[in-house]
């Protein structure tokens, strides 16, 4: 299995841009996990991104794995039952998500405010690789996961670009505005009888769509400011 350094594993730590949609691999603090006591826990989303949403809304319950302190993982081929999260809080301490305790939590408990880390695309693929190996004892190369997940990961990246272009600098965003912009993006994908959503299904169209997103979002922003 593939190993990653913290810099390559995480997209962001100590807070995540509100513009980024909630995705597989995101880490949340202060989540009450049914069946694991009343103390709020840190959890990592393990649900596949293709299954997490209906439109812009998350499905009611999201699969997560609790995150706890863990040893420093040197050999990522071992430690099959966890997703290593080295230096998660940038304090030199190491953590891991425990697949054994995977369960579902209400989507409402996973908020942009309590999201503390997100994974890079490579990180998400490594998480998928480890989940499959843990659940099915099947060891597959990352490029298969990349090919399988390319449309949904591209859509997520496009949504983030849209929100940033529509609302401006990511650091000053609030959750309500982000949701409005994200809905606007999803509606834009569905315009023209879903032409863009269909185009997302082929990797050959992704570069085109990325270009279109930035232009369209900037135009919407200009219209709104008039």
């Amino acid at each position, binding site marked *: 299995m593939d190993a990653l350094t913290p810099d*390559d594993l995480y997209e962001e730590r100590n807070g995540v841009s509100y513009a980024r949609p909630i995705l597989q691999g995101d880490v949340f603090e202060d989540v009450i996990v049914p069946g694991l006591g009343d103390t709020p826990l840190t959890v990592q989303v393990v649900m596949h991104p*293709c299954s997490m949403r209906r439109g812009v809304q998350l499905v009611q319950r999201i699969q997560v794995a609790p995150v706890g302190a863990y040893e420093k993982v040197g050999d990522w081929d071992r430690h099959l039952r966890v997703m290593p999260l080295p230096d998660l809080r940038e304090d030199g301490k190491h953590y891991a998500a425990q697949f054994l305790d995977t369960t579902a939590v209400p989507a409402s408990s996973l908020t942009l405010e309590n999201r503390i880390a997100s994974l890079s695309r490579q990180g998400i693929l490594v998480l998928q690789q480890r989940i499959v190996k843990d659940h099915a004892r099947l060891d*597959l190369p990352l490029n*298969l996961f990349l090919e*399988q997940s*390319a449309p949904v990961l591209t859509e997520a990246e496009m949504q983030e670009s849209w929100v940033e272009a529509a609302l401006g600098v990511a650091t000053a965003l609030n959750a309500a505005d982000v949701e409005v912009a994200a809905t606007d993006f999803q509606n834009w994908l569905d315009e023209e009888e879903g032409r863009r959503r269909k185009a997302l299904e082929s*990797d*050959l169209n992704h*570069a085109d769509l990325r270009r279109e997103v930035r232009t369209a979002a900037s135009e919407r922003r200009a219209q709104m400011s008039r």
Partner: protein
Amino acid sequence: MTSTLERTTATAVAPAVTADYAETNATRAISISASWLRTDVDILRDDVHALHERTRTLDLDDRAHAKATSAGVPELLAELTSSRGMSWSDVAAAAGVSVSAIRKWRNGGAASAENRNSLGRIAALLDVLEESAVAEPAQWMEMKLPLPSGYTIRPIDLYVTGHAEALIDIAEQRQDAESVLDQAMPGWRDHRSDYEVVVDAEGERIIRPRGK
């Protein structure tokens, strides 16, 4: 690769084995001449190939320097992503930095001159590819190379491993992808997958054993 000097020497010695030119008939003489000519052409081809590679590298360096000098990091990132349509992850991989570093640059963080040059080099390569008749260079970088089933290598993978010039060879159709990979990434044939990604009955991409 055999050096020009070694090959010239070897060729110069070879005809001495033939005892006496005077006793050779006309056909034999033509054959010897053709052999010499062929060797000269082979040497010339290799020399021109090497020269072309060196000049391409210099051209790419010049273009990268010009890009990195005339534009700041935000402008370079905008060119690569908004104008060209590259993904953030591919930009990070191609620049040899983490995605978190790219995100910091997007938010105004400082980048080193080396990193700026790396971004300039990607932008320069996309320009060169466009001039080589690749209509959508960023898209082309994401496409799977035409290889036998079971192999998934994209142009961006070649670039990340330091083979920008080899990529241009493929784009210009001077060599097929397999020949380029044999030179640039020996051992690539060891990574054939027995699995493939297909669209299932519900329209979802799934991974399954190849040929099922």
